[in-house]
């Protein structure tokens, strides 16, 4: 089996290969308005991060998208539980969830822009994208609960809280973790896309839009790199929290 050090060296080498390829192509194209290399991107990130507007934009987008995700996580979990234990709720929500899954994000963005304005646009879009993923996975996770254990708990008259903690939670946890892995990336992509359309003041989307308008390709790449880094950190932090909550308390 590969050692930890060997894996790290391999990963670094792969990353270096792609960065060098990117740099090589940008040198070959030699038109910064078309394509900038990794060094120019890094330089733009460093330049932007020295301004207060940069941090304000990052913070605003992070809060809006994060809040939208958190709301959708709570609502999806609650509604998924209700749909499992009260099948009528599931039937009632079914058309809404189908709508949320099938309507293109762009349509939601325009509607939300008309109804709620640009300020909370990424929050609403993040919510709309994340909710069905969490809802459906919660319902599926609860349905996968071991029926034999539930029978055992019924006959032994196990307390409801213990039943939830020791029987339902272990069944639900893997579904929630994989749902979050998908939903976290989706919330960022859709939230930023919504900001690009709505251009709320002090947002990453607004900065991306401005970079496009003024042909500052290095800033476009820099903001994209920032989005990737934030999405990665956001995903790691949320998954760490969920995995910790899901772990058995010994």
């Amino acid at each position, binding site marked *: 089996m590969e050692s930890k050090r060997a894996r790290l060296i391999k990963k670094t080498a792969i990353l270096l290969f792609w960065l060098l390829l990117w740099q090589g192509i940008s040198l070959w194209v030699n038109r910064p308005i078309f394509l900038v290399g990794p060094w120019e991107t890094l330089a733009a990130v460093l330049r932007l991060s020295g301004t207060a507007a940069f941090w304000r934009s990052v913070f605003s987008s992070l809060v809006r998208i994060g809040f939208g995700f958190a709301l959708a996580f709570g609502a999806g979990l609650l509604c998924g539980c209700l749909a499992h234990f009260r099948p009528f709720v599931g039937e009632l929500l079914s058309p809404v969830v189908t709508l949320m899954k099938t309507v293109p994000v762009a349509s939601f963005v325009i509607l939300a822009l008309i109804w709620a304005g640009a300020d909370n646009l990424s929050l609403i879009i993040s919510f709309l994208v994340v909710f069905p993923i969490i809802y459906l996975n919660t319902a599926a996770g609860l349905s996968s609960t071991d029926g*034999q*254990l539930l*029978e*055992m*708990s*019924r*006959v*032994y*008259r*196990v*307390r409801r809280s*213990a039943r939830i903690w*020791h*029987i339902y939670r*272990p069944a639900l946890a893997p579904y929630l973790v994989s749902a979050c892995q998908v939903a976290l990336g989706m919330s960022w992509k859709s939230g930023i896309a919504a900001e690009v359309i709505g251009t709320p003041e002090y947002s990453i989307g607004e900065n991306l839009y401005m970079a496009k308008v003024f042909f500052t390709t290095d800033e476009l790449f820099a903001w994209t790199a920032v989005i990737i880094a934030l999405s990665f950190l956001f995903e790691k932090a949320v998954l760490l929290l969920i995995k910790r909550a899901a772990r*058995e308390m*010994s």
Partner: protein
Amino acid sequence: MEFQIEDLGKSYGEKSVFRHVNLCLKEGDVYCLMAPSGTGKTTLFRILMGLEAADEGRLVGFDRVHFAPVFQEDRLCMGIGAVKNIRLVRPDLPAEAVRRELLELLPADSLSQPVSEFSGGMRRRVSLLRALLSSGDFLLFDEPFEGLDEKTRAAAMELVKRKREGRTLLFASHYPEEARALGAEIISLSAG
């Protein structure tokens, strides 16, 4: 007090599992249900516990019973240890008391492991002790000693004798010696 099973019948579609089952069980006695495989022992137990409905007949005296079953499968929560599995059904019992009981059946180091890491025999012992330590007043064991080696089986039967504490015990088995060892009255269930 007596528990009566009157003219009980169960079928799945066209297939009859059993018909006209009549039993009278005295509270505090030990009974061994012996029957060939597929004659509905497990189904009968499930009906008694209220997990399935009978198609015909009636049960008298079972409505207020709190069962303490050993299922054919161990039905333990795999992610947690033996002590927690038992305290799931007896939260009022101190962890230390459960530990002491378990140490008579399992090696000490196993008590810090989740039951997913236990052997089949160890899980069976936990499942058996869970029933015996539970506050159930009617012990209902479905082939409780199946899969145990001779030495463990003898220890498990000794445990049942020691921990039954006068409660009614109805257990299914294929072996008359198990019935003899527990001083059980044998009940036969025939096919159809």
